[in-house]
């Protein structure tokens, strides 16, 4: 083997050698397995039940895979697919394939994207605030989005078709407000977190206040579904909505991993190394908010995923953000897709918001980690 001579330019050839880390590979494989199994369960069971084998066949139905028109219409939407000259006209799909592809599969995909976004967003915020209890929602994003949701549902109900966008924008605005409050010739992790608490408290009070003006139990349930996070009723529209932002945010997170690592050395060291700490911190927070907002637009405010997944991954692969971000890309979907199985099927036909299940699963697991390890995921 040529890798034997450790001297010389071995590290250059090993640019991606860190990916071949056994712990990271194991984590990625295990997570993928969870997603696949949970996904199969998800597409098999429901109002129209089929066996796992039937579900498997439906997922890999050659009629779908050999006709680019079908996939294009689902992924790009009818309009865009038509302009590209791709169409599914004249293609007959079996009943199982229709159910799996139109109704059940998109929910699994949205769940995977939401989990990915939340996990990576949480990981970034934990580095930016140097606080291991940080989540995607620490800088006001959830409370801003929650307030926007309540305002839309209760006060400006005419705008409810725009709810996903309004929720994300509300979250992003709250984040900017937090930054503005924290800014005093620069910021610091502590100032940011405190400003997040201020904005969060005010927004949450307003949000709770608005609940009193809702006169319809349906509106209240809808509001709760949005503010605890739910995948009920997601279809390809949501996939199309979340996919581009996910690609952008995850791409940016992956290329910024070195910046995150240097930021972890502390502001003084990072600055002495020539990093423009304020700019980098704001840009990284922006990436994390983008990821969080994308997930809010399709699933509402799913709690706990963004807090716990980075911890789990850090416990397995260590605190190097190159590995951590990649690990989160796999572990986030695993937790969310698995939790959604419970949310959808546990009390069937009643569907719970997935946020309730992530809390129920995540809480005890967090407890287990706390008891097991001396220093829980120290950053």
């Amino acid at each position: 083997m040529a890798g034997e001579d450790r001297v010389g330019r071995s590290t250059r050839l090993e640019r991606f050698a860190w990916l071949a880390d056994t712990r990271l590979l194991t984590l990625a494989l295990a997570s993928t397995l969870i997603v696949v199994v949970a996904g199969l369960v998800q597409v098999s069971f429901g109002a129209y039940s089929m066996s796992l084998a039937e579900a498997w066949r439906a997922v890999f139905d050659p009629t779908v895979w050999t006709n680019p028109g079908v996939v294009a219409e689902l992924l790009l939407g009818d309009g865009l697919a038509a302009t590209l000259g791709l169409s599914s006209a004249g293609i007959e799909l079996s009943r199982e394939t229709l159910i799996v592809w139109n109704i059940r599969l998109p929910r699994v995909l949205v769940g995977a994207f939401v989990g990915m976004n939340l996990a990576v967003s949480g990981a970034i915020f934990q580095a930016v605030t140097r606080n291991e209890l940080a989540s995607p929602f620490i800088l006001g994003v959830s409370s801003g989005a929650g307030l926007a949701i309540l305002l839309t549902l209760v006060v400006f109900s005419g705008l409810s078709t725009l709810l996903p966008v309004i929720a994300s924008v509300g979250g992003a605005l709250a984040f900017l407000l937090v930054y503005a409050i924290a800014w005093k010739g620069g910021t610091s992790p502590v100032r940011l977190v405190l400003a997040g608490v201020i904005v969060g408290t005010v927004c949450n009070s307003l949000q709770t206040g608005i609940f009193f003006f809702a006169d319809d139990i349906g509106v209240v349930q809808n509001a709760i579904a949005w503010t605890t996070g739910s995948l009920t009723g997601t279809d390809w529209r949501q996939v199309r909505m979340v996919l581009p932002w996910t690609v952008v945010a995850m791409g940016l997170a992956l290329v910024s991993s070195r910046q995150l690592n240097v930021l972890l050395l502390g502001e003084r060291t990072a600055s002495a190394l020539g990093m423009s700490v304020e700019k980098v911190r704001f840009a990284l927070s922006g990436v994390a908010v983008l990821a969080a907002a994308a997930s809010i637009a399709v699933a509402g405010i799913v709690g706990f995923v963004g807090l716990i997944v980075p911890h789990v991954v850090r416990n397995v692969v260590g605190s190097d953000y190159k590995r951590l971000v990649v690990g989160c890309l796999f572990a986030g979907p695993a937790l969310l897709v698995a939790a959604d199985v419970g949310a959808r099927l546990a009390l069937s036909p009643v569907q719970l918001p997935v946020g309730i299940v992530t809390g129920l699963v995540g809480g005890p697991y967090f407890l287990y980690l706390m008891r097991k390890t001396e220093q829980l995921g120290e950053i």
Partner: protein
Amino acid sequence: MVKHVNTNLNTRLGTAVSKRTTPTADATGGSGAGATFAGEDLVIGYSKDDPVIDGESLVVPPGEVTALVGPNGSGKSTLLKGLADQLALDGGSVVLDGREIHQLGAKELARKLGLLSQENVSPGSISVEELVYHGRYPHRGFFDSVGEEDECAVRDAISLAGVDHLHEREVSSLSGGQKQLVWIAMVLAQDTDVLLLDEPTTFLDMHHQLEVMEIVRTLREDREITVVLVLHDIEQAARYADHVVALKGGEIQARGAPEEVVTEELLAAVFGIDAEVELTDRGPRVTPIRACHHDP
């Protein structure tokens, strides 16, 4: 307030005298004879109304070792942070190789000037080698991968700091002294002409103190790097530095060659101690006797 304190002691002793020479004149630049580095009329502090350093000037001799000494709260670290552009100047300017440092981009400055802060925290699990590679940050663009130059610099820094045997260990598993050597390796990997070290030997055992000072000596002798360091141990300063600058209350009280600065009078005036100073071939030896209780 006293504005210019470059009075009696300085001019009388001054090797590193700060006259009104603009360093631009003899800016040789590059690594040849070390970089020229000077601060002029510096006003540095944490609030504008009450600056810690109020109008001091300092010319650092290129390619040599300058030690800042002084009692706690004398403004040594503040001066160092100001020189490194880590604290905004409220007045005056710092010139490196003929250019004002705050006009340089952050990365450009970090390629010329390295700073090791007093206390450093490393993240949970990071290997020695990974940490040292962070020293290459200013040399790498956003998308750049590790190049041959980076590898050379890192190898060189690791061997110069004498941490070869540790390079695969996790930083968090090392002793305080070993950690400090690793952090020094990181700033060495930055490959700068000027290196500022803030109390690099404080809290270290004697072995590691000597290790650190040996590295400083090597930098001076083999690399012609301009080193400015804050030291608590005045004997150490006298032994390893070419120039000693003594501060008290934010004012430079004396500057010059060790044997000229480290005197019984200065120890009484600046540090408030009665001490015996004996000249040996390893520099002045200081034997502290008692603290002076009167306000000098």
